[in-house]
């Protein structure tokens, strides 16, 4: 029954896209389908998240693997662990908020279909465990996104869409190359790999004969080339039979590739280390999405041109995919190379934080301002990951969620006044606090979430990241530089709040602005409530992502100790 649950998660938005496309073009109908699908996803992913957080296992609660091209090692392999569960739940929350935001009035049948299709890619990327499908879903996101900006965007939409496309395409090419390189350098026949006992215990399934199966492969015991026998799952549960070996055959499976981490570390290609090369390629692919300086230039442009709902999805979810990719692929596959380059990643993150913050200070367009603040905030994720400490990685995961909430809030709110004023110039507003008290309260609240006020979600992630970065030798200095982001974020956000909300009502015609409508409140309040809830009660999320980061940290530390 639950065998295809994860496929269902991907199938629902796909069906929704189909339904939107096929249904007659009546705006309320398309909108209803979009909202209905979002609610369905919210319930489904919420249930999955709850189920995942209720279990003790840190491994995959659900996994489905259907070999498709066995001779090439391609399989339809989906899995949900704590990280995936968190990300798809966040996706559904943002999807819900975005589907309530105002949709364009022209060609909306296509718009809604594209909107749904985008989520097929997002959910797929968060769940895929086979690199071929991961890559496919990654590309599926690209196409609707391109059209959503290019067709329904602002005046300069074409250029923005092309820019977005070129940057992300370049990143995808890097990823494709890395996948190709890894596939051809993978061992040709089964080689036994020593694995961490926890890894087996967390992700073990039991075969028909009671033998332990890890990621579809039997776990064995004994010395390499010597006597080997299958390990029974009861033995592992009892903590016996170590060290353990898993025979591997050629595949595109991320989890198999994760077991091969020591193998990658020893391989050379074109005279240089394979691990370093592929880490670099993957990093480029994911850093474009994060986005990190210097690969960030597409983001502000795309944000300014994109419709409100698309900006929300872009900032709230798509940027998280970059971080997700680093956590899921780059870090587990090449722990040694990551440790060597930690200082570099730390500095890239720190520079993104400072650069984004300084640039945000200088913006006159509200969306550009929030876009640069996203670059700055996402930099914290990179710094946390680079630190390679449990605090840093947990903080990075938490920061993904808190930024997903705060950035969605801010883009929705900017959309609210854009609806009314038809422009987004910072100096084109002023004194809105006198006219729109509810809007002002939420705007200030969202700014405070972004500024990392303790008691709100933003603080927990940043604190974890900074503590982690300061603790690790490689990222200490970068961590201190990153800390200035805390001051910068307060500066540009409060500056924005002051220009928009305070002072005399500079544009008298704005006195007629209506305060937030019910629909707007319905999209904003859940996000705001979650930001507050996660601030005062972060364990709700920490208890879920904490073991995930501990598991990654354990994997990396174990490999560095072993090799």
């Amino acid at each position: 029954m639950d065998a295809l649950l994860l496929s269902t998660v991907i199938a629902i938005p796909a069906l929704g896209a189909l339904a939107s496309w096929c249904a007659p073009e009546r705006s309320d109908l398309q909108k209803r389908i979009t909202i209905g699908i979002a609610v369905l996803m919210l319930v489904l992913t919420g249930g999955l998240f709850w189920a995942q957080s209720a279990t003790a296992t840190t491994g995959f609660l659900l996994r489905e693997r259907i070999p498709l091209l066995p001779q090439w090692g391609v399989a339809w392999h989906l899995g949900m662990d704590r990280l995936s569960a968190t990300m798809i739940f966040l996706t559904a929350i943002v999807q819900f908020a975005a589907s309530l935001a105002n949709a364009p009035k022209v060609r909306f049948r296509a718009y809604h279909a594209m909107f749904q299709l985008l989520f097929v890619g997002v959910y797929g990327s968060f769940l895929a465990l086979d690199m071929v499908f991961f890559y496919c879903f990654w590309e599926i996101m690209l196409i609707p996104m391109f059209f959503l900006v290019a067709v329904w965007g602002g005046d300069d939409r074409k250029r923005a869409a092309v820019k977005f496309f070129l940057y992300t395409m370049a990143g995808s090419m890097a990823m494709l190359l890395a996948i190709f390189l890894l596939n051809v350098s993978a061992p040709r026949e089964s080689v036994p790999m020593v694995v961490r006992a926890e890894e087996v215990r967390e992700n073990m399934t039991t075969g028909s004969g009671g033998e332990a199966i890890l990621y579809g492969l039997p776990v064995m015991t004994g010395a390499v080339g010597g006597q080997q026998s299958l390990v029974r799952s009861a033995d592992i549960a009892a903590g016996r039979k170590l060290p353990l070996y898993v025979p591997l055959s050629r595949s595109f499976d991320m989890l198999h590739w994760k077991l091969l981490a020591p193998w990658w570390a020893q391989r050379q290609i074109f005279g240089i280390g394979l691990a370093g090369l592929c880490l670099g390629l993957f990093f480029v692919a994911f850093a474009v999405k994060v986005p990190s300086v210097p690969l960030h230039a597409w983001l502000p442009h795309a944000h300014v041109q994109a419709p409100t709902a698309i900006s929300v999805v872009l900032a709230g979810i798509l940027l998280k995919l970059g971080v997700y990719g680093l956590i899921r692929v780059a870090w587990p596959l090449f722990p040694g190379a990551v440790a060597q380059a930690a200082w570099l990643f730390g500095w890239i993150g720190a520079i993104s934080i400072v650069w984004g913050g300084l640039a945000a200070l200088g913006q006159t367009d509200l969306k550009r301002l929030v876009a640069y603040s996203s670059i700055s905030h996402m930099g914290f994720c990179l710094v946390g990951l680079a630190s390679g400490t449990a605090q840093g990685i947990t903080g990075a995961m938490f920061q993904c969620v808190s930024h997903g909430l705060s950035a969605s809030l801010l883009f929705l709110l900017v959309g609210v006044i854009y609806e009314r004023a038809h422009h987004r110039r910072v100096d084109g507003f002023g004194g809105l606090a006198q006219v729109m008290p509810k809007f002002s309260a939420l705007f200030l609240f969202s700014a405070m979430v972004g500024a990392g006020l303790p008691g709100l979600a933003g603080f927990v992630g940043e604190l974890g990241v900074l503590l982690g970065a300061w603790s690790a030798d490689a990222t200490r200095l970068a961590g201190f530089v990153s800390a200035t982001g805390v001051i910068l974020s307060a500066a540009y956000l409060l500056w924005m709040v002051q220009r928009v909300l305070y002072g005399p009502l500079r544009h008298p015609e704005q006195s007629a602005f209506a305060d937030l409508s019910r629909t707007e409140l319905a999209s904003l309040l859940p996000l705001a409530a979650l930001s507050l809830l996660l601030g005062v009660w972060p364990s709700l999320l920490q208890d879920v992502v904490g073991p995930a980061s501990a598991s990654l940290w354990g994997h990396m530390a174990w490999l560095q100790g072993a090799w």
Partner: protein
Amino acid sequence: MTNLLWLLPALPAFGFAINGLLALAGARRTEGPDRGIVGFLALLFPVLSFILTLVLWQNLSAATESVRSQSELLGVKLQAPAFAQTMGDWIRAGDLAIDFGFRFDKLTGIMLLFVTGIGSLIHLYSIGYMAHDRGFARFMAYLNLFLANMVVLVLGDGPIVTFLGWEGVGLCSYLLIGFWHHDEANGSAATKAFLVNRVGDLGFLVGIFLLWQIMGPGSSLTYEAISAWFRDPAHAAQLATPAVAALLTASTLLLFVGCTGKSAQIPLLTWLPDAMAGPTPVSALIHAATMVTSGVFLLARMADVFAMATTTLHVIAWVGAATAVWAAVTGLFQHDIKKVLAYSTVSQLGFMFLAVGVGAFDVGIFHVFTHAFFKAVLFLGAGSVIHALSGEQDIRRMGGLARKLPVTFAAMFAGWYAIVGLPFGAGFWSKDLILERVYVHGGIGLYSIALATAALTALYMTRMMILVFWSPSRVDAEVSHHVHESPLSMQVPLWILGVGALCVGFFWADMIHLDWFARQLSDVVGPAQAILVSGHGGHGPSPWLLAGFGVTAAVIGILVAFGLFRNGAFRENGREPMGTASRWWMLAFDGLHTVVGIWPVSVVAWILDNWIQPLLMGILRVFGWLVELAGSAIRLLQRSRLRTHMALSVLGLALLLLFLARELL
């Protein structure tokens, strides 16, 4: 009893929630929500919180007494009791585990007593003061939120929980400074306050982190654990190693940077005078009585840590002294009644840090306590004067108000009497304790600065009193028609606080051997002070003699003030000989912030904008050209025939395969 601790912040937070919703619901109506209900609710919850504090204090005192008698009976020193409550785990990341917990001991109790007590009085006062303001409900909601955060600040059982309240009061301070947000200047002042505080808060965080590193990762970050760790003789050797000692100095200095932000000390003090843009009850509650003293509270809370960092204590003492004298001089040049009081607050805070710096944590807290009374009454009195004069704040256009506003005058006289340190007022006892400790443990240099500041304090405060109350009236004729005494809701707090300003000093009247206050704190800061004092030893001259010096300084200040400003005759509106110099003096630290803070940021931003950004764009452009070039080359090839294509493709494929085969096999 213990499990009621959460109610202390929850009550005012609840008030905030209700009033906030009422304010939002009624915001677009001119009259807003019903003022009676809002005012009642806004006052009710702080008062409940105060009553609960009283009950808890009673219970704690009883528990302490029983423990004390037990330890005397058994002959062993038993741990002083404290109420603690853990609400649940809060932040978990790796080996860092922070619980959301509260701890109510004697230090927290004293802070809470006056925070909720004076807080309630100021809520009452605000009901009268803000009665005609359109944003009445919003104002009361913010005040309630502030109180909730302030309670969390002092009640937190560890530095990170304190930090929650610490930034929370900063937010409320921001909201209340910019309360009248239709005026651009108020918003700027609010933003400045928040940002300057953010700089300090970053110091706070890094300081805590270093402390955590010293104690060893994995250790618990509660005050109890921190104190225990630093009191433990087993760690003395570790603390004595140069590396750890340097780390400790860095950690404590950074924590102190956090304190300079919140408590407006050099160099992060520029925001406080600007913060006077907020309504006067805010200045009284947040920027005089409670929030700005958090820095002193934090140092006392972590006395066991600071006792090990003597270098930092020296820095604190000198920064405190320098701030005290700088602000006192600046206070002399102010024309705005609230600005005079603001600089006076900065100066008094300097005194508190001076006390802490010479190792007298309990005296510092005692001055926090007395200062809360006399500065609150001065601010509320000033508010009453401003209210009476329809918003006039310039002391050059006041004068002769003693007869017209008798209640206000009496209250402010009490406040003045206390702050200048005339015998037996509240300030007399606390300030003379500071002077005595500074003389004994701080040396003659610090003592003379402190004594000079005491004289200056008397000078600028008396100047203010003369110009407002005693000199001939310079009030505009139009305004003077409407001069009226404030409503009862504003007078009651004035009476109570005025009496307090005269009397609360007797809680620790050292010279006549009343030391109730010191005994309360002895369990908390006693061990730390014992370490510091044992190094110095020795006793100064008789306390009466030192008190005599202090009073003499005050009298000299008062006499000079009367000599200079007797008739209110001064050419303030004309050219001032000291004008330029005083402006330079006043804006010195704003200038410092510009040079150290704003210029570097601008320079970095300029370099990024003008050099790095074009460089990146250039690289991308070169990339683009290369692609274009490759495109043209390929176009050339494409002109040829199909056969060539095929051949080239096959050749390429073969080469690729060969290459890969060589590399990989």
